[in-house]
């Protein structure tokens, strides 16, 4: 343990750099993926005929192994192989693919009786979506978002296998030197990032769904 | 026979679901547990097959303590029917019904054959055997649930609101068929419902429970209607008690008018000729009543027409001569001519009766009942004279 601390302090500067890269690689794709998945998920929900192709397509995207995507994107996008942008794009694709289905299913899961009541009260379609369906679907979408966020964080390190620079470099160093301290530092940092990110999303869900707290408190 | 001996169920947080329940459900009869939400009726039922264990007291099944038998063995000897059927979605209807026989180790072919028999018995088309529960309607699923409970021919059946989840028309059909089935099979049945009308219709004996799990009254339905034990039972049993009680009084030998009838196909003129007032009863070739023909103010040209079904008034209900006073009164009240049509058990015309005749019989009977009650309250024991006032109930 002591060795790990020492290693951490000795390499503070690099670690700080790498942490920065890792953080934006963690947050940005999830945010963009979410934003992209909302309209597409809504489409799949709204037009029943589009549900199977959209969901299958998303499923297919999710099936592509991460490493493969990291490797193929330079060829497709023309980016350099070591550019972290490949990772960002790949993770965005994953988040999107995972959430599209969850958004569609989340919207589907709102009880028809609730929607009928909303319509009868005079809500327009858009208002029903925004004021009734989405809020009710928030817990489920939020749960999916947490899964996406946490999985993505752990995927970032995989990019070190082909040399992309971020906190995963600690693992590479650890292997190269045959010692555990760098690896342990890396593991701890990744897990901390994942946990904090997860907690932040959870907090967001709580803030958006005050009625659930009331129910739980009964 | 199933006997509750001071059975209590108390939960760790202090709620008492069943409080010192003592009653005996007779063999081969339907005993109904009825009461408002929270009265412990379902809890009591589920203590019989030990889905819930009593906190104190014991339940005897034909002089064997249920606590002494292994629960799964106990349950294999009891049919269990619940509100939403609880069919296994992953098995075909036939395999669902055959579940308990297979559990008991019966041969697969035999079990399936028996299952097929039972499906017919509960009124389901044999084509349903290969289908899956998701493809059946609620009423159909309930029938399968009953068939499944009967498959191993258990002497006891436990039923928890089995007909509550279907619409009223289907419910009435299911209730009637259930009574017919019980008439054939004679099982010892404990039946839970929140619907007092269902309890009165189906039960041989009815136990009314109040919130907190205490027994308020345990009696045959007629007694519940005529002598509720306390205000709670009176309120729970509801209004129209006197009228509903007539449903338990046999019509007996009502004096019938043997009025003349006219068959379908005869000319309207014939109907008018025999009519004693504005209405004539029309029957079919088997003398089964078809409806009333209004002959009062017909123009002459209508008299040469043939009597066809579309000319008839179908307003009156039919009462069987072996039926109840309530049915007879209803026949008279609902008939357009004021005369109720009474039929034999096979549906053939027996005669007509007016409302006043039925009422006269009702009052006779009521007088007998009152006299009995006075004697019972007075505690006098009198020998029963064969045709005297004490010879009633």
């Amino acid at each position: 343990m002591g060795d790990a601390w020492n290693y951490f302090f000795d390499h503070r500067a690099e670690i700080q750099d790498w942490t920065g890269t890792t953080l934006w690689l963690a947050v940005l794709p999830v945010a963009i993926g979410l934003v992209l998945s909302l309209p597409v998920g809504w489409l799949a929900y709204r037009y029943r005929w589009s549900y199977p192709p959209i969901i299958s397509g998303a499923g297919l995207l999710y099936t592509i192994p991460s490493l493969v995507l990291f490797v193929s994107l330079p060829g497709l996008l023309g980016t350099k192989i070591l550019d972290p942008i490949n990772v960002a794009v790949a993770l965005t694709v994953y988040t999107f693919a995972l959430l599209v289905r969850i958004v569609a299913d989340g919207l589907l899961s709102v009880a028809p009786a609730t929607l009928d009541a909303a319509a009868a009260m005079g809500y327009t379609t858009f208002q029903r979506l925004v004021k009734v369906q989405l809020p009710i679907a928030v817990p489920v979408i939020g749960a999916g978002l947490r899964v996406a966020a946490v999985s993505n964080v752990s995927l970032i390190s995989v990019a070190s296998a082909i040399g992309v620079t971020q906190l995963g470099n600690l693992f590479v160093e650890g292997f190269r030197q045959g010692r555990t301290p760098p690896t342990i530092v890396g593991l701890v940092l990744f897990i901390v990032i994942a946990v904090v990110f997860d907690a932040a999303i959870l907090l967001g869900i709580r803030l958006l769904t005050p009625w659930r707290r009331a129910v739980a408190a009964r | 026979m199933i006997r509750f001996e001071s059975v209590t169920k108390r939960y760790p947080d202090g709620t008492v679901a069943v409080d010192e329940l003592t009653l005996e459900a007779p063999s081969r009869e339907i005993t109904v547990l009825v009461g408002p939400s929270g009265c412990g009726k379902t809890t009591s039922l589920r203590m019989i097959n030990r889905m819930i264990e009593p906190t104190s007291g014991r339940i005897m099944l034909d002089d064997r303590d249920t606590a002494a038998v292994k629960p799964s063995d106990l349950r294999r000897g009891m049919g269990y029917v619940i509100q939403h059927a609880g069919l296994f979605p992953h098995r075909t209807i036939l395999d669902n019904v055959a579940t308990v026989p297979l559990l008991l180790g019966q041969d697969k072919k035999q079990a399936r054959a028996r299952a097929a028999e039972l499906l017919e018995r509960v009124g389901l088309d044999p084509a349903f055997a290969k289908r899956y529960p998701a493809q059946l309607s609620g009423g159909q699923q309930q029938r399968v649930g009953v068939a499944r409970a009967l498959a191993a021919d258990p002497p006891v059946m436990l039923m928890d609101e089995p007909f509550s989840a279907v619409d009223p028309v289907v419910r009435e059909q299911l209730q009637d068929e259930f009574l017919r089935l019980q008439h054939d099979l004679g099982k010892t049945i404990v039946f839970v419902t929140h619907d007092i009308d269902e309890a009165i219709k189906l039960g041989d004996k009815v136990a009314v429970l109040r919130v907190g799990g205490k027994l308020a009254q345990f009696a045959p339905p007629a007694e519940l209607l005529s002598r509720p034990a306390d205000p709670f039972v009176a309120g729970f049993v509801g209004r129209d008690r006197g009228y509903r009680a007539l449903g338990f009084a046999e019509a007996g030998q009502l004096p019938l008018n043997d009025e003349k009838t006219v068959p379908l196909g005869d000319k309207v003129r014939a109907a008018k000729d025999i009519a004693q007032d504005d209405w004539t009863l029309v029957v079919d070739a088997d003398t089964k009543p078809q409806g009333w023909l209004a002959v009062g103010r017909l123009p002459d040209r209508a008299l040469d027409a043939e009597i066809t079904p579309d000319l008839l008034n179908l307003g009156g209900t039919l009462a069987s001569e072996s039926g109840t006073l309530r049915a007879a009164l209803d026949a008279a009240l609902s008939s357009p001519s004021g005369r109720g049509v009474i039929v034999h058990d096979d549906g053939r015309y027996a005669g007509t009766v007016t409302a006043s005749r039925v009422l006269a019989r009702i009052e006779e009977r009521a007088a007998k009942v009152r006299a009995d009650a006075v004697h019972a309250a007075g505690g006098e024991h009198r020998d029963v004279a064969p045709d005297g006032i004490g010879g009633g109930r």
Partner: protein
Amino acid sequence: MKMSVVAGGNGLPGLDRVPIWFNDPSNWWGPDGLVVRTREHLLYTGTVVLVAALIALPLGLLVGHTGRGVFVLVGLANGLRAVPTLGLLILLAVWISDHLQTKTDIPYFIRAGGLPYFIAALIVLVLLALPPILTNTYAGVQNVDPAARDAARGMGMTGFQVLRKVEFPCALPLIMSGLRSATLQVIATVAVAAYLPFLGGLGRFIIDGSQVILDLKYGYPAMLAAGITVALLAVLADAALSLVQRYVVSPGLSGRNSKRSARRQIAILDAEAQLADA
């Protein structure tokens, strides 16, 4: 989308080199060829999923049936998801190879000297495959119609019989979905495991290729070709498992009605959401 030919803007050999790579028979056969690597990849995947299923299925069924230990299960599943695979892989590899030096080999699986790394990879991959199987199995059992469960007990089935005859078959759709999910994860991560020396599988092309990236035979074209193969493998495996699912799951359960399968997916996430919420 730029289709660079030989040396495009990013300096890498272009996509047109990939068909050329596939057309070269020497890339297919031989001890380090596509065929051998694919076979290794499938073997590793199969072994891992089998082991993970052997652990996670009984656990998930037990927790679902008894309702106890749910916190632990969900916590475990969530926690495992947060672990960076490469990090754990390397940690274990370093630790095990320090304590176990051996020249043994397992035919088809690992060559001489690779056993410590193989063990490390196996452990990490199994840990990775556990969460989807665990959560799906648990949710599957939880989702069984409570009336069916009550009726089963009421008919006299013992606890174990209820599990075997009712809960397990009714949970199968979700269990299969969990197994498919796990298989996809594993196929993807076996490629990453090739970071460790001696390990086979299609990842070998990718990892080794990243060192000689400009080489036309062993560099980027090989990486892409292997990548495509892995992706194909994943798609085929998923299709195969979905066929198995169709055979194994009772027709009475097929959620043709997508509201029902939507509700099932929601059920898994909801289960986690509710519990992690508390």
